[in-house]
């Protein structure tokens, strides 16, 4: 096991820079999630850690040892690729064994590791099957077994669940986290799904446009997003972001007024849907635009007179019809303020 450190990592493809000046510390045994929208450089970063791509600049250290120019197999990492890539012409057993082809283990030890992985992932009856004869979830299990037999320094997973249906994804999510905690192995998990990131990661590194936006625990990322991008990207339903201005200790945007002690100037107010409430009167006058009933609660989408949409979380029993007028008001104690340039400038003390 090992800690991984990226030191000013940069990767360009021709004139295009996919990853820019990335500093990242993954501590020993940690489950780190790389989260970001499509094309932000997550896979590129992971490939650099794996040694599949050579960084244009910067260093990669495993436990303080510089591995920047080592080939993948000598880094002793294991990787699970997007949609659980396996060798299509080899059986599950051959695929798993291929992981150990460069190791000099004794045959008994080799056997034991494979047997352990097979029983841990319950894939005993898949061993003679070709990947094309397995379901997506089964392929995923075999790919994971292939990764763990190597007992690697680090596990690198690139959107391994993205090709699966929602129910299976949820099952495997828990299985992967459980396995990681049992093995205690340093893991970097790439995803563009913020729910996956929030539920699985010890820490989340949010990337955007090849840069690291923020790194922190899921609750840090959720409670105190450092930038507008993170605020809008993490959380479901997403945070409401309202552009306005602070003057005399009051945030004003259209008809909305929120008392907030912040420096005057143009800002964006961020408020999570659960901190925006329906008021009898005295709030921002809106009309119901849509109701999304989730069972445990309801997402209420309203539109103010300037046609800006806001999302609220209300109780499941909420009664209302599209077009009904109502007033909404944010909880001033739970509002965040963002500056376009410097990011978060005001957050509730907690």
């Amino acid at each position, binding site marked *: 096991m090992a800690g991984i450190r990226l030191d000013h990592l940069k990767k360009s493809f021709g004139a295009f820079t996919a990853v820019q000046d990335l500093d990242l510390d993954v501590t020993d045994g940690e489950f780190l999630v790389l989260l970001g929208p499509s094309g932000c450089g997550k896979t590129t970063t992971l*490939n650099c850690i*794996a040694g*599949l791509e050579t960084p244009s600049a910067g260093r990669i250290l495993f436990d303080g040892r510089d591995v920047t120019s080592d080939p993948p*197999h000598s880094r002793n990492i294991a*990787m699970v*690729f997007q949609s659980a*890539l396996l060798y299509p*012409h080899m059986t599950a057993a051959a695929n798993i064994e291929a992981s150990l082809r*460069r190791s000099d283990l004794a045959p008994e030890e080799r056997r034991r590791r494979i047997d352990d992985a097979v029983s841990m992932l319950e894939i005993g009856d898949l061993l003679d099957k070709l990947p*094309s004869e397995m379901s997506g979830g089964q392929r995923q299990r075999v790919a994971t077994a292939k990764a763990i037999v190597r007992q690697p320094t680090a596990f690198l997973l690139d959107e391994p669940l993205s090709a699966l249906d929602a129910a299976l994804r949820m099952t495997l999510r828990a299985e992967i986290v459980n396995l990681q905690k049992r093995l205690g192995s340093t893991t970097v998990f790439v995803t563009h799904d913020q729910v996956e990131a929030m539920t699985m990661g010890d820490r989340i590194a949010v990337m955007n446009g090849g840069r690291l936006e923020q790194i922190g625990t899921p609750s840090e990322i959720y409670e105190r997003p450092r930038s507008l991008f993170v605020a809008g990207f993490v959380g479901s339903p997403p945070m409401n972001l309202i552009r306005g201005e602070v003057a005399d200790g009051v945030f004003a945007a259209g008809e909305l007024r929120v008392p907030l002690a912040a420096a005057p100037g143009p800002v964006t107010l961020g408020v999570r849907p659960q901190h925006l409430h329906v008021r009898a009167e005295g709030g921002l006058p809106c009309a119901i635009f849509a109701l999304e009933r989730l069972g445990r609660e309801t997402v209420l989408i309203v539109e103010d007179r300037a046609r800006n949409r806001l999302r609220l979380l209300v109780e499941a029993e909420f009664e209302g019809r599209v077009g009904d007028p109502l007033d909404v008001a944010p909880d001033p104690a739970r509002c965040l303020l963002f500056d376009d340039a410097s990011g978060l400038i005001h957050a509730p003390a907690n």
Partner: protein
Amino acid sequence: MQRRMTLWAWLGIAVAVVWTLLPIYWFLKMSLLTPDEIARFPPPLVPLDPTPAAYFNIFGFDYQVTPELVRRASGQAGQIINGLINSLIVSIVVTAITMLVVVPLAYVFARLDFRFKQALLITILLSVALPPVSTLIPFYALYVQLGLAGTLFGLIVVTLTITIPFVTWMLIGYLRNLPPVERLARVDGYSRLETLVFIVIPLARSGIAVAAVIAFLFAWNEYTYALVLVNGTPANTLATALSGFLFQHPEPSHLAAALVVSILPPVLVAYFLQRHIAEMNLVDPIR
């Protein structure tokens, strides 16, 4: 609607089958007829008294039909045997060399990135587009200078100039659609060469088999270059030898039998590789 579609489909298939098989049937039948049956008008639709005599004759053997009647060996037997051997040599050597060159070449173009890749690729495609006739005269002039005209070696080289670019171009498309197994292979510690030999070639065996069939068929059927470069020399191939007979007034059943022999190797090759041909799906190599 459904029924009519099926009817039309069947009709289409029937037309296609008749279109391909009728000529083959016709000379297959002709090869089994006796000379006076061939001379008859209208010609019989089926051989009334099929004899394999022509097949013995074209390989230089007399055939005893009845104690009194012997059908004599064909005077062109030597040319046919020679042509058959030459064609087999050329086709097998061309196929082998083509595949040895093309598999790594197509792999490199399909799966790796390097400088000037696009320009080099276009060069290959252009040479596919070039009609053989346009390079015929330059090749001929060159070959006469080098003393390669009328040699099997010369014919093999010139055939390779067509099969290599064409098959490369074909195989590039197939290899491109393989899943990105190289990344997996690199993590497992396969070198580039090992990846090609142990992963990509087994994975792409259907596509490679089909490519080999195409190279073989091309070499076997090659006519334009052979006509100019080796016709009338000891390096004559079966295709040119057969076309030459038309001027030598052969016995019709002999010509027909020689034609049947000339389509046998392609038929055998296609038969043994049909599983791969059916398996090969150009869009999605891995079902």
